[in-house]
C-alpha cells in the first residue's frame, strides 16, 4: 500500500498569530524570503555557523492542514496577490508562489540546469565571467541529490503531455523527458495547489528544515517593509517587517525589526526589486526594477475525441527546446500545463456560450504552452517593476512588442501543428476572437489577428530579473557575486538577479547559482 510522506516540521518557526508584541531581533545574517534562493542560502549560512533569521511574507503551510487539491483554497492562499497578480493593464497574468517555501510550494516540479547558451550570453554581454557550468556543477549535483531530481519514467507521461511528445515526434521535432524533484509521486496533478502527498521536494521539506536544524529561525507572515541604511548609506543596518494576520493577510500592527551584520534579499523577482525601491537604496543609474523578464507564455487549446484528463498526472513531463535558437528573433520552448477547471476558465477566451462550451470539453482538452526566451535580443529590455501610492502598491509593466508578436505567432503555429499531428480534432488560440485551426491552411489566420494588450491571453509562471547581476554598475544592481554594487553587506539571492530570462524553468538555476554565491559570501566572512 502506498503511504504519504509525513510533514516535516520546521523547528524554530514562528507564525504571525504567535507574535503578540513588537519584536527586536539580532542575527549574523537576515534573509528576506524563503523560496529556493532564501532557503538554500539560509541552509548554507546556518551550516557555516551563522546565526540566521529568515523573514517570510507568506504563511507556513503543510500537507495535512492546507493542501486539499482545491483551487478555491490554493490560489488565494499560496500565490502572490491571492492569485491575482498581473501586469498593470491585466494583459499578462502572473502566477507566482507565496509562502514558506516560495515558488517551490506550487511549481510543477520541472528541473533544468541553466543552459550553456544562457551562461555564455551572461558571460559575454553582462560581464559575469565565472558564471560557468564548471563552477555551478558541483552545487547542482548536491541540490539534485538532496531534492531527488530524476528523469521521469516514460510510463509517467500523462495523456496531456503525450500530445506534445507524440505530435512532435510525427513532425520530426525533438522533445525530451523532464526531470522532477519528487519522491514516490502519486500523480495527483495537484502540484500547483501544494503537494497533497509531500512527494514534491520543495523548500519547506528540505532546505528550510535543514536550516532550522542548524539554528536558523523562520518568521512566517512577516512582510519586509524596508531595509534601513546607516547614516552614510553604505551599509544596511536592519530590516523592518510588519506582521500579517494569516486569516486576513492584513497587518496586525505588530512589527519585527531584525538587526544583522549581513543581509540577503530573496523575495523573488518583482518583490525583491520592490523592497529595494521602498527602502530608497542607492540606485544611481536607476537599474532596480528594470530588465524584468517573464518568459511570456502563449497557449493553444486542442480538442480531442478521446479523454485527455489534463488535470491528473504529473503536470509537466515533456518539453521541446527545438525552437529556442532563432537567430535574430526571440526563441521559445514548449511545455504542457495542467488544466483544472478554474485555471482553464481563466485561460479560455471569450465569455458566455462560447466559453461555456469550451469548459464543457475540459476532459478532452489539451493545452500546449510556448514560453518566450525574453531578454536575449540586444534591444529586449523586458518589463519594469516600480512603486505607486507611496510605495504601498507595485506597478508591473511589460510592453509586448513586435519581436514578441512574431515569436508568439510562430509558437502558436508550431503548437497547433503538433496538436493536430497528435490527433486533435481542432485547435484554438487564446485570441479574443480565437483562431480555429483544423488544418495547415487555417494557420494563416493567426497572422491576421490583431495583437495588443488583452487581445491575446498571455501568462507567466517564471519571473526573473529586476535586480540584474552584471559587472557594470551602470547596467546592473548586483555584481558577479550577487552582492549589491553600492552596499557592502547586502546580497540578492533569487531569480531577480538573472540578467535575461533563462530559456528553462528557473528553480534549479536559482538553487545552484545561489548556492555557489552563498559559498563565496561565507568565504568573505
Amino acid at each position, binding site marked *: 500500500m502506498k503511504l504519504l510522506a509525513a510533514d516535516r516540521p520546521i523547528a524554530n518557526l514562528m507564525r504571525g498569530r504567535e507574535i503578540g508584541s513588537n519584536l527586536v531581533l539580532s542575527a549574523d545574517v537576515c534573509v528576506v524570503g524563503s523560496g529556493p534562493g532564501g532557503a538554500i542560502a539560509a541552509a548554507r549560512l546556518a551550516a557555516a555557523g551563522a546565526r540566521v533569521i529568515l523573514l517570510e511574507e507568506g504563511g507556513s503551510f503543510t500537507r495535512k492542514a492546507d493542501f486539499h*487539491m482545491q483551487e478555491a483554497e490554493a490560489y488565494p492562499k499560496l500565490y502572490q496577490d491571492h492569485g491575482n497578480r498581473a501586469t498593470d493593464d*491585466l494583459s499578462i497574468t*502572473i502566477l507566482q508562489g507565496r509562502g514558506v517555501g516560495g515558488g517551490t510550494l506550487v511549481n510543477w516540479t520541472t528541473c533544468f540546469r541553466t543552459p550553456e547558451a544562457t551562461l555564455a550570453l551572461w558571460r559575454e554581454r553582462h560581464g559575469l565571467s565565472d558564471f560557468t557550468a564548471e563552477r555551478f556543477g558541483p552545487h547542482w549535483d548536491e541540490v539534485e541529490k538532496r531534492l531527488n531530481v530524476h528523469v521521469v519514467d516514460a510510463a509517467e507521461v500523462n495523456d496531456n503531455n503525450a500530445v506534445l511528445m507524440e505530435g512532435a515526434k510525427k513532425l520530426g521535432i525533438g522533445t525530451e523527458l523532464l526531470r522532477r524533484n519528487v519522491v514516490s509521486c502519486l500523480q495527483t496533478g495537484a502540484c500547483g495547489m501544494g503537494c497533497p502527498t509531500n512527494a514534491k521536494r520543495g523548500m519547506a521539506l528540505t532546505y528550510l528544515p535543514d536550516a532550522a536544524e542548524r539554528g536558523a529561525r523562520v518568521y512566517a507572515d512577516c512582510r519586509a517593509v524596508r531595509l534601513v541604511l546607516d547614516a552614510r548609506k553604505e551599509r544596511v543596518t536592519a530590516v523592518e517587517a510588519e506582521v500579517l494576520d494569516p486569516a486576513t493577510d492584513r497587518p496586525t500592527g505588530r512589527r519585527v525589526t531584525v538587526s544583522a551584520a549581513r543581509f540577503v534579499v530573496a523575495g523573488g523577482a518583482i518583490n525583491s526589486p520592490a523592497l529595494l525601491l521602498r527602502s530608497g537604496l542607492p540606485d544611481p543609474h536607476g537599474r532596480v526594477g528594470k530588465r524584468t523578464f517573464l518568459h511570456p507564455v502563449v497557449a493553444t487549446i486542442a480538442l480531442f475525441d478521446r479523454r485527455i484528463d489534463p488535470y491528473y498526472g504529473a503536470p509537466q513531463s515533456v518539453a521541446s527546446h527545438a525552437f529556442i535558437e532563432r537567430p535574430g528573433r526571440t526563441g521559445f520552448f514548449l511545455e504542457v500545463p495542467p488544466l483544472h477547471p*478554474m485555471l482553464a476558465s*481563466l485561460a479560455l477566451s471569450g465569455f458566455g456560450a462560447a*466559453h461555456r462550451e469550451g469548459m*464543457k470539453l475540459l*476532459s478532452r482538452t489539451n493545452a500546449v504552452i510556448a514560453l518566450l526566451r525574453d531578454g536575449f535580443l540586444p534591444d529586449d529590455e523586458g518589463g519594469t517593476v516600480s512603486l505607486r501610492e507611496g510605495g504601498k502598491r507595485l506597478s508591473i509593466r511589460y510592453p509586448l512588442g513586435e519581436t514578441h508578436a512574431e515569436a508568439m505567432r510562430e509558437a502558436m503555429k508550431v503548437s497547433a501543428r503538433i496538436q493536430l499531428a497528435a490527433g486533435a480534432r481542432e485547435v484554438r488560440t487564446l485570441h479574443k476572437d480565437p483562431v480555429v485551426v483544423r488544418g495547415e491552411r487555417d494557420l494563416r489566420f493567426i497572422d491576421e489577428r490583431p495583437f495588443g494588450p488583452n487581445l491575446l491571453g498571455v501568462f507567466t509562471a517564471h519571473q526573473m530579473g529586476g535586480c540584474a547581476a552584471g559587472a557594470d554598475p551602470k547596467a546592473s544592481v548586483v555584481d558577479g557575486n550577487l552582492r549589491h554594487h553600492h552596499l557592502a553587506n547586502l546580497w540578492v539571492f533569487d531569480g531577480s538577479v538573472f540578467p535575461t530570462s533563462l530559456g528553462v524553468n528557473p528553480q534549479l538555476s536559482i538553487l545552484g547559482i545561489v548556492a555557489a554565491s552563498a559559498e563565496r559570501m561565507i568565504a568573505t566572512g
Partner: protein
Amino acid sequence: MESRRGFLRKGLLGTALLALGGGAFLAFRRTLRAAKPRAALSVLSPDEYAIFAAVAARIVAVDGDSPATDAVDVAGRADDAMAQWPDSVQVEFRRLLRLFENALTGAVTRTGYETFTASRERRQDERLAAWAGSRVAVFRSGYQAMKRLACACYYAAPESWPATGYPGPPELPFGEIE
C-alpha cells in the same frame, strides 16, 4: 492583490470614466437588484453585488447542464475574495462595476441607454463584447478584471465541475510514513 490596478490609469479618458462611474448615474437610472445578498457583505454594496451577479451570469452563461451563477452565489464568493484585497484595489473594482453599470457607458459603447442590470440579455452581451474588444485599453482591462473574477468564483466551486467532466481531486491513500 495588485492585478486590478492600473486599468483606470490610462490618461484623461480613464480618469473621466472613473469619475463618471463613481458619480452620477444617467438620468437617475438605478441598478436593478435582481440578485440579493445571501449574507452580510464585506466589501460590495447591495447595488454592486447585484451588478456583479448580473455580469457573472452573462460571462459564465450556464445552460441546463450546470448550476446557475446565483445558485453558486458567485457574487457572494467574489465579495469574500475581495475582503482580502488591499483597500485601494477594492475601491477600484467597485468603481469599475459602477462604471460598467452606468447607462452612459451603454451610450458610449452603443449598447443601449439602460443600466447593465436593467438591460436585456442581448444588450448585456453586446456591452461585454464591446468592452472586451474595445480600442480603449481601459475597457479591455476592465472586462478582463470582471471576467477573471467571475470565472474563478464559479469554476472553483465543486458544483460547477460535473458539467466540465472534471471528476474532482483524486482519492488519496490513507496512512502516513515517517
